[in-house]
């Protein structure tokens, strides 16, 4: 119940620097929140809501976005719903459009943000992460001392595990000439396997330029470089690509969680790769 419990449990900064100052000055566990969907679900995972939250919803900089520019810029507070509705059409961005549109459910998509998807370390099944990885996205960060930093998304995935106060202010990615796809296997609460890919062909129709990222299978989403290296120069045949995924699945370290064991995530992966390449093939016709 809401009575007889602490009241000032949420700070509402108006700027990035103010938020960083609050985080730096806090002597109790203090967590920034964007859409807050991971934090508010904490009790269902037997994790208490942290004693103090820093709400980012009043910071104008984090709500800025420019879908018409190249590179496209999304502030950290851009929701899945906003991204799905606003992203320009184009085969290169299809992976992100699908990731934003298919994640969770409509109500959650109106709340969950790109910043939250990127920053929540315990959330292995973030849909936007693999999609942004194959778009070569960079993550914009604000650090204490008014410093700013921009990291490649793969670098950021390691950076976010290090101790230290920072805020993710947004994400940036350039348009490209590749064809992209995004597929997922939903089960119970979260997807158990996600595949995003972005592929460019040479004049003979073979794979010249490939990015393929896997989400929900390991502890963090990541580019599957072993697959990319093997697939380069091949025809983008969905069945053959699925078989290649099966052959290379031992290069992954799958995680087991309440929704699915690790072996299952790897088991469905070849079918997901096959479907992703089928999406690409359909786009090529």
């Amino acid at each position, binding site marked *: 119940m809401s*009575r007889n419990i602490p009241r000032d449990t949420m700070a509402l900064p108006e700027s990035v620097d103010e938020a960083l100052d609050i985080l730096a000055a806090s002597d109790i566990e203090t967590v920034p929140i964007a859409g*807050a969907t991971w934090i508010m679900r904490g009790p269902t995972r037997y994790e208490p809501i942290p004693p103090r939250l820093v709400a980012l919803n009043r910071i104008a900089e984090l709500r800025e976005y420019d879908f018409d520019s190249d590179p496209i810029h999304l502030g950290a507070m851009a929701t899945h719903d906003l991204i799905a509705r606003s992203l320009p059409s184009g085969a290169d961005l299809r992976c992100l459009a699908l990731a934003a549109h298919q994640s969770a459910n409509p*109500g959650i998509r*109106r709340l969950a943000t790109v910043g939250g998807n990127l920053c929540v370390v315990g959330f292995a099944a973030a849909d936007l992460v693999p999609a942004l990885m194959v778009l070569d996205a960079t993550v914009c960060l604000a650090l204490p001392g008014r410093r700013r930093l921009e990291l490649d998304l793969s670098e950021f995935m390691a950076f976010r595990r290090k101790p230290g106060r920072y805020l993710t202010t947004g994400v940036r990615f350039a348009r490209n000439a590749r064809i992209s796809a995004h597929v997922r296997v939903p089960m119970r609460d979260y997807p158990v396997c996600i595949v995003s890919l972005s592929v460019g062909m040479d004049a003979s129709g073979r794979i010249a330029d490939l990015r393929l990222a896997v989400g929900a299978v390991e502890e963090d989403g990541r580019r599957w470089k072993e697959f990319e290296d093997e697939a380069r120069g091949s025809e983008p045949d969905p069945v053959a690509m699925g078989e290649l995924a099966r052959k290379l699945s031992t290069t992954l370290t799958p995680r087991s969680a309440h929704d699915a064991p690790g072996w299952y995530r790897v088991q469905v992966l070849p079918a997901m790769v096959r479907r992703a390449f089928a999406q690409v093939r359909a786009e090529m016709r």
Partner: protein
Amino acid sequence: MDVQFFVNGEERTFGGDQRTPLLDVLRGDFRLTGTKSVCRGGFCGACTVLIDGEPVPSCQRPVGLLEGAEITTIEGMAPVGELNLVQQAFLDHDVVQCGMCFPGMVITLTHFLGSNPMPGRAEIKEALAGNMCRCTGYERIVDAVLSICPTEQAEDQPPVPEVSER
């Protein structure tokens, strides 16, 4: 710090823990128990309310974020003693089973029909992706919605086979 917002058009103040889910404030403090508490994880949709016109799960909104917000619960979807179009369709089609999911369903579908007044069957199902019915009464729910969208309903029906004259 108190949080002030509007619930069904009435200004309300909450002075408790700002991390409290709106769901608990509505039910526990304001006694608006039409908003149902089921999964508390944003998966089932039973606690859906409109916040500034958008249907979202109230279990996922810490009340401290809602300063100045306009919240509409199932109690505010129609004047007291009246039903809105979706509620009336559910009644007419005898759709309600256990009833736990229906406040959320009504809010989601009322908002959906506001932006898409002539949906197809698949679009209605997609709109309901975040509203779980444990009684699994989905088809009748969709039928009820289609009954208030007569034009699209007709287009959705399989074509009537032509009968040749003998």
